[in-house]
């Protein structure tokens, strides 16, 4: 927990933040519209005695009282998938349309991938890429259980990704939900910070810059790229945006977030970032009783 002390200067009500980080996280499931409807899931939960509470900004998200949603009939049928509330934000912001070509650059184990596919009504093509072959098997089994057929899975380093296997070389939209130091998952994984080091964060930052730059280049002019992490470290968030804004033809756009958040920070540890990073969103656990999260929406230049 002392790792988080470094964020005292940038987080409002730091004591509330610390207290929230110590509380366990509510279990949330997302309804899969490819196989069912929110009303049918609620009817199933009512019949089987599973207590739930809707999340106010999406009728497809339900907070559950059970600790084991993976052992419910709704899970077996692919009617629901476990997904933390903040983890549902990036796909919500990217909001792909049915028929689009979409990239999920770091897709495994597939919670956001399957949400993107659902928003696309299982139409068009969703390229789900991940560099980790082992984690791709989890992605594939999640996508198949949820009944998806528009997902093409690739196993490449996202920094060198291309679409040579396909009939196109750019996508309409991309999600870049990068590997990160995962500080914001502390409520779910109490040992998330055990191996934290400044060197690790800096190393991740380099990889994240490469991943985001490549995704911007793979997105057609006027298309959108959502960048997200589950960490608080500005090195992995605003510093990555600042770098890509300088190196690539793109800009940050305003986001219409359905939950409380703070703007991106423009100063950190003696560094100054492009003022546009204020358009990014920092979501702290004490804001909405969720995990911690960061997301930004980029528009690719013409």
């Amino acid at each position: 927990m002392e790792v988080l002390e470094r964020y005292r200067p940038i987080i409002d009500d730091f004591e509330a933040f610390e207290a929230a980080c110590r509380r366990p996280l509510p279990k949330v499931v997302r309804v899969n519209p490819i196989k069912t409807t929110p009303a049918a899931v609620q009817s199933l939960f009512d019949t089987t005695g599973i207590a739930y509470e809707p999340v106010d900004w999406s009728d497809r998200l339900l907070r559950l009282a059970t600790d084991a949603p993976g052992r419910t009939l709704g899970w077996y049928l692919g009617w629901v998938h476990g997904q933390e509330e903040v983890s549902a934000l990036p796909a919500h912001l990217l909001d792909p349309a049915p028929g689009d070509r979409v990239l999920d650059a770091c897709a495994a184990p597939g919670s956001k991938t399957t949400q993107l596919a659902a928003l696309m009504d299982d139409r068009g093509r969703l390229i789900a890429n991940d560099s980790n072959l082992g984690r791709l098997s989890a992605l594939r089994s999640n996508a198949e259980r949820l009944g998806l057929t528009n997902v093409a899975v690739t196993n490449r380093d996202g920094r060198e990704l291309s679409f040579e296997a396909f009939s196109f070389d750019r996508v309409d939209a991309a999600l870049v939900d990068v590997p990160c130091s995962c500080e914001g998952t502390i409520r779910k994984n109490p040992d998330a910070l055990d191996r934290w080091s400044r060197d690790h964060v800096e190393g991740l930052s380099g990889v994240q810059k490469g991943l985001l730059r490549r995704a911007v280049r793979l997105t057609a002019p006027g298309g959108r790229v959502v960048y997200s992490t589950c960490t608080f470290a500005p090195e992995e968030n605003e510093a990555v945006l600042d770098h890509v804004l300088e190196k690539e033809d793109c800009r940050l756009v305003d986001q219409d977030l359905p939950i409380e958040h703070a703007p991106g920070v423009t100063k950190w540890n003696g560094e100054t970032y492009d003022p546009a990073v204020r358009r990014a969103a920092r979501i702290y656990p004490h804001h909405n009783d969720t995990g911690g999260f960061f997301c930004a929406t980029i528009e690719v230049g013409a």
Partner: protein
Amino acid sequence: MTDSERFDRLPATAADRSVNDRPTREDVCTWWSDRYGIPQATFDGFSFWERGNGKIWVARGTEPDPVAIQGLGMLALRTRGEHWKPTTNAVQRFGAAATRNVIALSPEEARAFIAGEDQELSWDGDWGYLIATLSVADRSVPLGVGLYVYGELRSTVPKGRRRELSPW
């Protein structure tokens, strides 16, 4: 490129076939229709692919043929062997339209089926792969595939998909 990474699109009909014994798109659509009564139009807009030995995948839309990637849509059907065998996931996705070779289970029978158990059940029809369903939220929902032989429904739910449901 290894075989396991390569998807080959099924030819439309036997006249388009270049690889002996590869099933055609027509074969696959006809099989779903003949066996389960699922209308062939259900698969309009989908393409079928073989990867590995007789394993047929179904994908929305299409891609250049062949395509060497890790996954394309879902594994739908195994066509090696005398009787074709649909997957749990394909039946859950497309099986709601089935009108024959469908066995409706009670909640307790469904619980055993999902746990991967074999059970003695009466069935008037032919032996073979049946679509097992359960009434959930006022609709008949396909659970997966059971092999009916010798008075017994054998669950074919893969090990990784089985669940001891709790709570129900």
